[in-house]
C-alpha cells in the first residue's frame, strides 16, 4: 500500500528530490505554526484573517495634469504597481521611515510611471487623501484633501 505513495516513489527515484520535498513539508508546517512565511515556503490564507467593518476608510486619488487616474480600469499589474506602491510609500512617509530625498525620488517615479502613455499639458501630479464611510453599501466621502504635490522638479 505505502509503496504506492507519492513520496515513496520520489524516494525510490531520487533521494535529493525527496529531501527537497521533505524540507518543503517541514518548512510549511513550521511556517504555518508561526503564521509567518519565508520564501520559498508560502502560506495561502486567501483572506482568512477575520475582518470587521470599519467606521472609516482611507484611499488616495492621483491626478496627473488635473486628470484623475482611474485605477480600477487599469490592468491588475499596473494597478498594483501604482496603488499598492503608493499606499506603502505613504505609510513609510507617515512613519518618518523615508528620507525627504527618497520621497521626492518616489514621487518623481510615480509621476513618470503613471504619466507614461498619457497626453499631459503640464508635469504636475497631485495626490488626494479621501476619508469615506459606507451607507447602504455605497461609500460616502467625508473629507478630501490634497496631501502631496509634485511639480516635476523632483530629485
Amino acid at each position, binding site marked *: 500500500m505505502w509503496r504506492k505513495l*507519492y513520496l515513496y*516513489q520520489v524516494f525510490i*527515484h*531520487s533521494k535529493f*528530490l525527496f529531501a527537497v520535498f521533505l524540507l518543503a513539508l517541514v518548512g*510549511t508546517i513550521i511556517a*504555518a505554526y508561526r503564521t509567518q*512565511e*519565508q*520564501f*520559498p515556503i*508560502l*502560506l*495561502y*490564507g*486567501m*483572506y*482568512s*484573517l*477575520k*475582518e*470587521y*467593518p*470599519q467606521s472609516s*476608510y482611507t*484611499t488616495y486619488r492621483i491626478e496627473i495634469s488635473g486628470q*484623475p487616474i*482611474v*485605477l*480600477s*480600469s*487599469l*490592468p*491588475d*499589474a*499596473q494597478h*498594483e*504597481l501604482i*496603488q*499598492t*506602491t503608493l499606499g*506603502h*510609500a505613504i505609510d*513609510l512617509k507617515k512613519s518618518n521611515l*523615508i528620507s525627504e530625498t*527618497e520621497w521626492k*525620488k*518616489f514621487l518623481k*517615479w510615480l509621476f*513618470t*510611471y503613471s504619466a*507614461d502613455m498619457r497626453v499631459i499639458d503640464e508635469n504636475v501630479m497631485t495626490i488626494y487623501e*479621501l476619508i*469615506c464611510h*459606507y451607507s*447602504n*453599501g*455605497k*461609500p460616502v*466621502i467625508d473629507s478630501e484633501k490634497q496631501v502631496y504635490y509634485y511639480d516635476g522638479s523632483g530629485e
Partner: protein
Amino acid sequence: MTAQESKNYIHLRGSFVFGMLLILVFYRLISSALLSQMNSPLFLFPQTEWVYAAVLKSGFLQYITAHYWSAALFDLLLLATPLLFLLTRLQIFAILFTGLLLTYYFTFNMVTGHHYHGLVGAILMTIPFWTKNEKPFLLLWDAVRYYLLYIFASAALWKILQGSAFHAEQLPAILQMQQLQLQLELPDSFRAAITQYFITHGTVAHIVLLLNTILQLSFAIGFATKKYDKFLLAAFIVFVISNYAVMGIMSAELLVLALPLLNWEWVSNKLAISSVD
C-alpha cells in the same frame, strides 16, 4: 502506454504550459508592467524575508532595472524564452525562463512592497520541463498538482481554524475595504453593483463565503485520489470566475496550475480526432 505516447503527452503538456505562460508574459507587457516599462523603479521597502533581503542586498535587481537597456534585454528574454522552448523543446530554455520569471517575481514584489503569490504557479509549472526523462517529469508534474491541492485545501483550513469562515461580517468587511476604489471610481459598473449587493446582503454574502470554503476544502480529496480531478478542475474554473466577479481578483496567473488536473490522454485523443477531421 508506449514510450512514444508518453513522449507525446509530455510534448503536448509543454505546448499548453509554455503557450499559456507566453500569453501571461505578453499580458504583463500590454499592462506596462515589465521591467523596462517600470521606468527605473525604486526599492524603498524593507524586506523581512531572508531570501528577499539577500536578493535586495545583492543589488542585482536594482542594477537591471536602473538601466533601460538591461531591463529591455531582460524583457526580451522573458518573452523569447517560452517561445524558444516551444520551438526547440530544449530544456535550457525552460530553466532560463524559470530563472527570468523568478527574477521578475522578486522585482515586482519588492517594488510594490507586497509579496503577491500569483506568479508562483507560473514559476512552478516550468520546473517539470527541466528534464526530458519521463519518470522525473511525471514526478515533478505530480508535485505541481499536489502544490495546487495544498493552496486550496490550506486556504480552506486557515478560514476554518481562524474562524473567518463562520464570521458573518467577513465578506462584506473585505469588500468594503478592498473595493472602495472601484466603488468611488466606477460606481455604475457591473462589478460595483455586485459589491454593493454583497455588502448590503450579509446572509447571502456569508453563504457565498461558506460555499467558497467548501469548494476550497474539496481539493483535499485530491491528495487521496486522482479520480475526481475533472470535478476539481471545474471547481477551479468556478473559483477563478467568482473570484473575479466578487473580489475583482484576476487569477489568470494561478489558472496555469490547473493543467495537472487535466486528463492528458483525453486531450491528446481529442486533438488527434480534430486533426483527422
